[in-house]
């Protein structure tokens, strides 16, 4: 089932599965974490993704076939990923659902959308069988999400909700992409959520917005002293629904460079999660409340 | 005398699809007369005549791709 391919003479690409599933995500994280620890000369970029990973390397320093053999041995050691304990971070992300800014943006791209008469949130609720937008939002914020990949553009997390397949929220992307999306929009497309790190083009339905920056090239916000990107692959997100008043208060904190994410270190075990997803998720969220 | 494209891209004779062409055969031009738009990387660049005279010929069809330096119009001096 594992499929390997060279991407030119300086990338190797490995796919664990064609369909999204957490076991494949964990295998990618486990293999790439192990590879990073080995500090192999000539390895330039190690990119874990949803069901695959990629290594960019300098073939003058490490022979492509040797690197491939190394990866194969790491993959064998990792197995199906259920034994891998991911040491990561759980973070609370405040979200204002159905906010005026993404609403206004959606209204500018009527012809790109499946249901121009509804908001993106209403459309998402309807096609997932919820009676009201609020019920969709409750499901969206009710269980945590894992950053299964960071990329597309700088610091943008792809988020996969950690619930059984039958409870996954699925929403088609826009019929054709928008040329504009507000910064820090919380989007959903297919089975993935995302937080837009920068303003720009996008195709995910827009559910809401967070006042918290997740990319700071100026590194002037307190959470960005060490890195201009907040999210790392494997971060776990718990959404905190907020109202407009709280949004404005948090925005003032952000502007004063006082805002800090609530976050805590956590170890995630795929095996224990799969045995009891809801119970395990409750435990995860308590880590945040305890910290 | 020729007016050449300063850059590669798509040649547009009109400021917008529903509007008249900037110039046609017989139009008088001066150095700063806008004669066309060339689009590349979603940026629109106004092409100036750069000379004084009368448009004698249009060398490229509207919305066709052009190379940098390609002749767009011929101009009769004067």
């Amino acid at each position, binding site marked *: 089932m594992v499929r390997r391919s060279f*991407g030119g003479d300086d990338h190797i690409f490995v796919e664990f599965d064609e369909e*999204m599933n957490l076991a494949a995500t964990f295998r990618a994280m486990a293999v790439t974490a192990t590879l990073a620890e080995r500090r192999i000369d000539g390895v330039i970029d190690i990119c874990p993704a949803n069901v695959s990973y990629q290594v960019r390397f300098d073939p003058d320093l490490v022979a492509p076939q040797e690197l491939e053999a190394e990866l194969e041995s790491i993959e064998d050691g990792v197995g199906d990923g259920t034994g891998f304990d991911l040491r990561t971070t759980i973070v609370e992300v405040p979200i204002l659902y159905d906010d005026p800014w993404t609403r206004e943006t959606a209204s500018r791209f009527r012809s790109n959308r499946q249901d121009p008469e509804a908001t993106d949130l209403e459309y998402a609720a309807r096609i997932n069988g919820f009676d009201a937008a609020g019920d969709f939002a409750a499901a969206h914020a009710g269980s945590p999400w894992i950053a299964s990949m*960071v990329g*597309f553009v700088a610091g943008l997390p792809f988020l996969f909700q950690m619930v059984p397949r039958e409870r996954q929220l699925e929403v088609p992307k826009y019929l054709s992409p928008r040329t504009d999306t507000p910064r820090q929009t919380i989007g959903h497309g297919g089975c993935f959520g995302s937080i837009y790190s*920068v303003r720009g083009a996008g195709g995910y339905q827009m559910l809401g917005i967070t006042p918290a920056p997740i990319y700071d090239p100026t590194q002037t916000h307190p959470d960005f002293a060490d890195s201009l990107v907040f999210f790392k692959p494997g971060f776990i997100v718990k959404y905190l629904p907020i109202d407009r008043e709280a949004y404005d208060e948090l925005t003032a904190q952000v502007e004063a460079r006082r805002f800090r994410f609530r976050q805590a270190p956590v170890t995630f075990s795929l095996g224990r999660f799969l045995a009891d997803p809801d119970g395990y998720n409750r435990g995860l969220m308590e880590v945040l409340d305890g910290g | 005398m020729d007016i050449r494209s*300063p850059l590669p891209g798509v040649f547009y004779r009109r400021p917008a699809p529903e509007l008249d062409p900037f110039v046609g055969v017989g139009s008088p031009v001066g150095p700063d007369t806008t004669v066309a738009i060339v689009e590349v990387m979603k940026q629109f660049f106004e092409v100036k005549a750069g000379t004084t005279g009368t448009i004698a010929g249009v060398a490229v069809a509207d919305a066709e791709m052009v190379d940098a330096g390609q002749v767009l119009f011929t101009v009769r001096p004067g």
Partner: protein
Amino acid sequence: MAVSVLNPGLSTTVQDAGRPGYYNVGIPPSGSLDQYSSLAANLLVGNGEDAAVLECTYMGPELRFERPATVAVTGADLPPRLGGEPRPTWESFGVEAGDVLSFDFLRSGARAYLAVSGGFDVPVMLGSRSTYALGALGGVEGRALAAGDELPVGDADGAAPGRSVPEALRSTHPKHREIRVMMGLYDHRLTGEGRRAFLDAEWRLTTLADRTGFRYRGAALEFRERVAPFGAGSDPSNIVDAPYPIGSIQIPGGVEPIVLHRDAVSGGGYVMVATVISADMDDVAQSAPNSTTRFVEVDLDGALGARRRRAARLDALREAVG
């Protein structure tokens, strides 16, 4: 401040050898798209190989030098003028305080590189001065140059004007190119017919050709029927979002392949069917809209051989000019 921007040109950015190591969080390598020409420009003015240059796309800027320097223009054939007088490309020349450098129209290629002795000394971000505009990172405030910008220049080691790249080591820019690729990634999603069409077609570069990617037109490619896997979109060209190699060729909707370059989006949900080999990325960079390209398949050994020949050519350049 040593260089004033009077007119920025169409899209002129500060670039260098690039910013490797951050692709896993979506920050691409950036740097000069045509690394060969960028290196040549630095060598001509006596700079180190990691000095920052200006990458001028399709059109040159107009710059005023506030102090004497040695400069060189390489890459695309974009003829420079100093105070209105023609100056050569692939050859260093001196400028005095107050001199204005401008450019004629592009003759061939797409991107010219302008080096100044001492290098453009904008702040180093994550180990590089390169501009990554999508992430507002590096260069001048993370963006292309604008009129009124003042560009700082580092201290020069005193390179003399008059250095020249031998004719045989100068890049040429034909209207038609053969770009070598390795098939792979998701090429199994193409039908046999789709794969043949990809390699047989004469692809014409559209105007959507920037630092992120180069979009071509020329044939519709057929994909195999399939049941959409969970998490992939419904179109046959969709996949569960995956990393995109630099140089990979994706085909949204089966039409208009896109070659990703050094400001690539780092991942996404479109099938990639091939990757341009590292030795040919400079050639992609010099392809202008309306030029044509055929993608020619090579295997890994072929790609590594081409890479060795390119390295030898870089060494010859260092030998001849450095």
